[in-house]
């Protein structure tokens, strides 16, 4: 008696089963599944999910809005999206590089605050030439973040400390110290955040006027694309990249093969930290321009989801970043159009995360279908 797959199993197998571009198809399956879940929640709230998702895309600049305020149009919305995406690209790459080496860098948020506050206090309020100031900010981001990453890697290796616990403790320590620094010296009495930095150090050109529009142009976005390709090259074509992946798969085997496991682990944390540091300057000195005390940026944690969704590959991280930021950028337009709470976007993002964490299971499940249904097909013939 030959068993047949039912319609749900067929759809599931089409997305997660063997074949070309399996990772991509599984990711798309996760996205669609979380959107279905989000849609059910929206339906329960009495809203039309299709209208909701459409206004999400409109808010992010992918679809044209019905009307725009003066000197804004779809182009400015897209530029805004890219501006918001830039720190996410760096942050998700930071998570991905560490994960490849079997380390879990949850200190991305802390590193972001660390480099953010360093660059803000050292360069943000200075009168340096814009070109010099911006270069300095980026260097501070890379070096500061790299040092912090090195510290975590070193503690992990030297003292056998769990890097997750160390990262979490550092997150809170940095967060409170930064908030102390802001509140005691740099607090803006009205916004209760740090005083906004000068335009000369800002990595985003704010309200840049051209073609009769006022645009926010992220200067780091082209650099982010470059970094994506650099990390991709590092992972696929270099000795270090091979060692990273090897240590991530099996530290013992790598040691046996003569690799320096200690050096590789610390190096991966340095790279990861430097990327997280870049995310920090892109976030605090680019997109926002000020630091909110006592708040760990949620972006640092969302980056874990993004890295997973991108199957821990640099190119995947890039596209996953754009997708997640579409959700987040479109939220305010969505909530003003439909009157739903802003939290719905982060809720859908975390459901998306939940599905992407199960991606390996989905693939296994599809493989078991393969054995159960398709193999029998062949034996019957």
């Amino acid at each position, binding site marked *: 008696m030959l068993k047949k797959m039912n319609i749900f199993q067929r759809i599931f197998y089409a997305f997660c089963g063997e074949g070309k571009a399996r990772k991509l198809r599984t990711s798309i399956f996760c996205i669609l599944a979380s959107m279905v879940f989000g849609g059910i929640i929206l339906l329960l709230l009495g809203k039309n999910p299709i209208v909701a998702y459409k206004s999400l895309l409109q808010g992010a600049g992918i679809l044209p809005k019905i009307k725009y305020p003066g000197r804004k149009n779809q182009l400015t919305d897209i530029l805004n999206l890219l501006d918001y995406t830039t720190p996410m690209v760096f942050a998700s790459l930071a998570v991905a590089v560490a994960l490849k080496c079997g380390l879990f860098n949850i200190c991305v948020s802390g590193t972001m605050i660390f480099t953010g506050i360093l660059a803000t206090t050292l360069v943000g309020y200075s009168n340096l030439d814009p070109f010099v100031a911006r270069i300095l900010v980026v260097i501070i981001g890379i070096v500061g973040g790299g040092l912090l990453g090195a510290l975590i890697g070193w503690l992990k290796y030297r003292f056998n400390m769990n890097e997750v616990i160390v990262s979490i403790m550092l997150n809170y*320590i940095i967060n409170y110290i930064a908030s102390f620094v802001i509140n005691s010296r740099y607090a803006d009495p009205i916004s209760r955040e740090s005083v906004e930095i000068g335009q000369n150090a800002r990595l985003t050109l704010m309200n840049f006027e051209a073609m009769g529009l006022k645009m926010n142009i992220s200067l780091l976005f082209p650099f982010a694309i470059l970094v994506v390709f650099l990390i991709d090259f590092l992972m696929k074509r270099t000795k270090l990249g091979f060692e990273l992946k090897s240590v991530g798969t099996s530290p013992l085997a790598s040691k046996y093969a003569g690799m320096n496991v200690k050096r590789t682990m610390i190096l991966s944390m340095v790279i990861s930290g430097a990327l997280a540091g870049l995310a920090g300057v892109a976030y605090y000195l680019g997109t926002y321009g000020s630091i909110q005390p006592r708040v760990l940026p949620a972006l640092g944690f969302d980056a874990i989801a993004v890295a997973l969704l991108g199957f821990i590959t640099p190119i995947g991280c890039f596209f996953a970043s754009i997708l997640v930021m579409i959700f987040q950028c479109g939220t305010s337009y969505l909530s003003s159009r439909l009157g739903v709470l802003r939290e719905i976007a982060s809720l859908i993002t975390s459901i998306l995360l939940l599905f992407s964490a199960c991606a390996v299971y989905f693939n296994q499940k599809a493989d078991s279908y393969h054995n159960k249904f398709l193999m029998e097909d062949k034996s019957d013939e």
Partner: protein
Amino acid sequence: MNSIINDSMAFALPLFIIAIGGIYCEGSGVINLALEGLLGVGAFFGGLSFAMISTQLGTTTNSMIYLSLIFSMIGGGLFAILYALLAIRFKANQVISGVVINMLSVSLTAFLANQLNYSLFGQASNKFMLAVFPRVTVPFLNKVPVIGAFFNETYVFEYIIIAIALIMWFVLYKTPYGMSVRACGDNPQAVATAGRDVNKIRFSAVIISGIMAGIGGMCFAYSISTNFSPSIYVGYGYLAIAAYIFGNYKIGQTLLACLIFGFARTFGYLIVQALALPSTYSDLALTFPYIVTLVLLIFFSKNFTAPKGLGEVYEKSKR
């Protein structure tokens, strides 16, 4: 002096009960970074039940406070089922799924707290107001020097926690069930050979950790802020994890670690008060427990022996 001991215990004991849940979970071989999220969801359920009952009846009584504690246990346990499904049934990476559960619980409780406040109570707020937890003074014992402070004006939940902790200690170390939980962490194949279902035992251990985290979270909500709001996520779950790692996965030593955290926290505040520093310095005081944890971990991490099978998905066919 009295207030130091009281404040420290009111912080250390909820941390302790969360850590006990963590010991069960990790003892059975499942890494549990989800404690942070579980305690938040537990507190959310407790807070919600308290708000609903008190608006229905129009009054607040002590029995409702205890009822909310039970609801927080149920809530934490239910949410732990989700984590157990991910980590055991779906074989997801346990570290990652723990963090995922944390993020989901933060966004879910923030969303639900806003939405339910709006639709049930007609308020635009993300908080559920709670009552003050009753305090008791034990006669005679409170006259004992130093230790007596613990029996003076103590929150009732501290005694509840101690009672539960004793039961949990007994179950883990003196019953067949506790034995198999610990065996699941060290050598799951041996447990399977003995005719027990490894995944079932792990599932139950994860749910126990959710229930314990629920109590702990609710007690934090009562003692620290007397309301439930998303600001409950300040890393106490992670602190509990550090506590039982520091306590080497043993309940007795973990109590010691929790007490260290509790006193470190109180002393941090005291120093700021004693030196009459401006209020901005309280931020520095807040770093104190985390720095103490980090430094202690540096010294003691070498000696730790985690359960051997920790973090490994149990495969029947694996040798």
